Every structure is written in structure tokens, then in C-alpha cells.
């Protein structure tokens, strides 16, 4: 592991690693620290990747060479616990923050760490209003997304075994595998009643029809006539960017605020609502793709400038606002 940029993405979900991959693949250097199970994603993109051992992680962190800049992708455990040995030695630390519940940031040990150990918080979603008085520099960024090259719709559908003209429901599985299995089961019935094909993207369920493993899933969105997904960070921003009709099924999380993220979308919270929404969107055509800046590229530029200058002036971060 080099002593340059270390992007810490050791959360349980995929989003932390996806944001890290997005930033480091644009930066062209740096090391991503994430769970070992997702190492193949980094290998596919040529990003340096390390994982702590399953046992002895605390000692492993204590022995890590201090990076010149530690970039932490927010998730609860890391900010205040296992990262402490690195935070104490790293000359500078930035926090990449998405929208999680404000009581997490205001939890006294978390707030104290943020205000004493972090140089800057980079918000890739709108922060809750109650966090306006956090005593740490804050920089708003557009969504940090991988933005892979989209597969041509016809080619993607051919590779998924979907015939031209056949409506496709593309579901993006995430979270608890048992809930994924139940949602997939329900969507099989809905797809059958609606005369649509179903592909359920999951890296947790066994890849047998209709379950498929696709990475990065964002590249396949144009194949879909309607997407069904939880309201995780990437799913919401990527489907908006692609302009694909989407039904959101927000999941309850300890901190990730999926109901807030889904507030302007089509939301289903029971089987009837899901089937009605799928039926409505299947007949409704595409939505206008959202035009937003590339947050990963913007963050990569800020990191480069920080490394060159040793500090970021207001003129560096003002254009991000």
C-alpha cells in the first residue's frame, strides 16, 4: 500500500466501494480499502485495493503506513472506531458523506471526531439542515458515481436473453439476501401477469434465472423498461441519470436515509403498490435523464489540488457549490 491517497470504503454495502472506485479510477492513483469480497470489482477497473484480515484488523490498521491524505467514505463503524489509529497519524483526513440520519453525525463521539480529526466533509447529497453548524469545512459535490459506459439497449437485451419488443423489468437486489429472495419471488409473479421478462441483479443470490450477476449494473440500465430497486445511493442517482422509469422500495436502515432519498420518486411499500407502479411505468415511456456534474471527477480534482498545494483555498472549492 502506498503512502499517498488511501480511500477507506470498508462499509457493509456496495456503495462505499463504488464511490471509491469512481474517485480513484478518475484520479489514476491511490489505494482503495474495502471488503475482500469486492476486490474483483477493483481488479476489473485497475484500481489498487487492499483488505484487512478477517482476524486482527485492529493490529492491521495500527501497522498501516499513514497516507498523505485519508479519504473516508462515511459509514458508522469506521469514523469513530477502527480508523482511530490511522486518523491519529494521517496528516489530513476528508470525509465523503452521503445523506444518513442527522443523529448519526450529531452523536457526541462522532461529532467530536468529525470536528477534531477531519479537515473537510464532502457532501455528495444534501445534508440534513441540523448539520449546518458542524464545525468542519463542508464542500457540496454532485453525486459520486462510477458512470460506466452504457451498453447499447439492443445489445444489453440480447445478452440478457430478452427479445426485441418484450418489456423488461430489471430489479437491482441489495441488502438482506432473504428480502432479496422474497422480492424476486414476488416480481416473478408480477412479471408473468404483466407479460414482461424479469432479470433480478444480485451478487448475493445464486445466479440462476431470473437472477443475474452484473457489474457494474449501471451499464445495463438502458436495457430496462422499468427498474425496481431499493433507494440506495447508487440506485437512485444512477437510474435518474439514465432516465429509466424506476419503482423505489425504500429499505429501513440504521442510518442510511432511504425514505428521504426516495421522496421525489415512485415509491412502493406493499405488493399491490409495486404491481400497480410497475404496470403504470411499463406503459409510460422513458423519463428525462437527469443532467448533473461528475462528482467523482470533481473530488479527484480537489484531491489533486490538495496534494499539490498542501491546503485548499476557497477559490478551489467555491466552484463546487
Amino acid at each position: 500500500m502506498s503512502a499517498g491517497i488511501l480511500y477507506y470504503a470498508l462499509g457493509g454495502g456496495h456503495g462505499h466501494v463504488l464511490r471509491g472506485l469512481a474517485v480513484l479510477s478518475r484520479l489514476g492513483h491511490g489505494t482503495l480499502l474495502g471488503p475482500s469480497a469486492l476486490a474483483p470489482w477493483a481488479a476489473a477497473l485497475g484500481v489498487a485495493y487492499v483488505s484487512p484480515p478477517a482476524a486482527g484488523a485492529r493490529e492491521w490498521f495500527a501497522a498501516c503506513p499513514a497516507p498523505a491524505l485519508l479519504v473516508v467514505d462515511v459509514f458508522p463503524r469506521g469514523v469513530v472506531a477502527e480508523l482511530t489509529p490511522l486518523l491519529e497519524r494521517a496528516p489530513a483526513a476528508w470525509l465523503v458523506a452521503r445523506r444518513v440520519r442527522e443523529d448519526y453525525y450529531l452523536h457526541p463521539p462522532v461529532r467530536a471526531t468529525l470536528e477534531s480529526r477531519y479537515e473537510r466533509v464532502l457532501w455528495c447529497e444534501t445534508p440534513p439542515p441540523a448539520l449546518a453548524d458542524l464545525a468542519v469545512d463542508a464542500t457540496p459535490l454532485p453525486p459520486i458515481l462510477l458512470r460506466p459506459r452504457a451498453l447499447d439497449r439492443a445489445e444489453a437485451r440480447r445478452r440478457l436473453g430478452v427479445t426485441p419488443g418484450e418489456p423488461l423489468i430489471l430489479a437491482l437486489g441489495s441488502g438482506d439476501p432473504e428480502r432479496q429472495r422474497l422480492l424476486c419471488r414476488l416480481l416473478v409473479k408480477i412479471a408473468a401477469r404483466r407479460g414482461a421478462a424479469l432479470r433480478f441483479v444480485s451478487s448475493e443470490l445464486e445466479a440462476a434465472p431470473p437472477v443475474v450477476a452484473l457489474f457494474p449494473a449501471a451499464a445495463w440500465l438502458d436495457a430496462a423498461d422499468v427498474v425496481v430497486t431499493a433507494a440506495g445511493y447508487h440506485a437512485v442517482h444512477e437510474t435518474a441519470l439514465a432516465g429509466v422509469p424506476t419503482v423505489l422500495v425504500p429499505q429501513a436502515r440504521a442510518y442510511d436515509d432511504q425514505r428521504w432519498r426516495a421522496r421525489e420518486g415512485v415509491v412502493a411499500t406493499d405488493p399491490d403498490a409495486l404491481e400497480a407502479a410497475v404496470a403504470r411505468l411499463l406503459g409510460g415511456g422513458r423519463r428525462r435523464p437527469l443532467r448533473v456534474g461528475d462528482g467523482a471527477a470533481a473530488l479527484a480534482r480537489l484531491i489533486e489540488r490538495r496534494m499539490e498545494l498542501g491546503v485548499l483555498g476557497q477559490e478551489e472549492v467555491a466552484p463546487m457549490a
Partner: protein
Amino acid sequence: MSPLACGDRSGFLFAHACDRPATGACSVCHKPICMEHTRMAAGGPTCITCLRDHDDNDADDDAADDGADDPYFYGGRERAAYYDADDYRAFEPAPDRPPGLETDTGAS
């Protein structure tokens, strides 16, 4: 060369030709079958028609209950309610994990 078409004619209610490209072959009758008409059985990938025939000939077999959620088999097996309890469970929170700051896993 155009891809081989699926040879199964099973529908949810009525038999009809399938115009999807074949992605494999049935392990029982060996005809080409598409992803939609493929189910994994004990002997390997099997078409809907062969599975239905197996059900008809072996109605008391416990295995006949496998795939009760499959719309291709609604008519020949105990017909499920429109939505059942498991469908609603798909929307419930995942089982509790230990409380604290180490529980933020999943979609992010």
C-alpha cells in the same frame, strides 16, 4: 446466422410459439430452450413442458410442490392467493442486527 429459437411452447394459460433465442437445451427432451422456459431440475436444465409432464405423471411426489411460486405451474398446482404472506414480507425490515454503530450494511 440467426440464433436457434426456443422450442418450448408453454404459456401461462395457452400454448404458443416462443420467439426468444435459445440459451441451452432441455436435459429430458433435448430441444433448445430460452432462459424463460428453463428451470433447474434434479437432472439439469429442463423445459416447462417436461416438468409439467413429470408433475402429471407423479402427482403425489413431494417434489411436485417445488416451484409453487412459478406462474407456469399455477394452473396445475394449488393456486396461490394473488399475494401471500411472503410477498408482504419482502417489504418488511430485515431481522434486527445488534444495535449500535456497526449496523449500517446494505444498499448505500
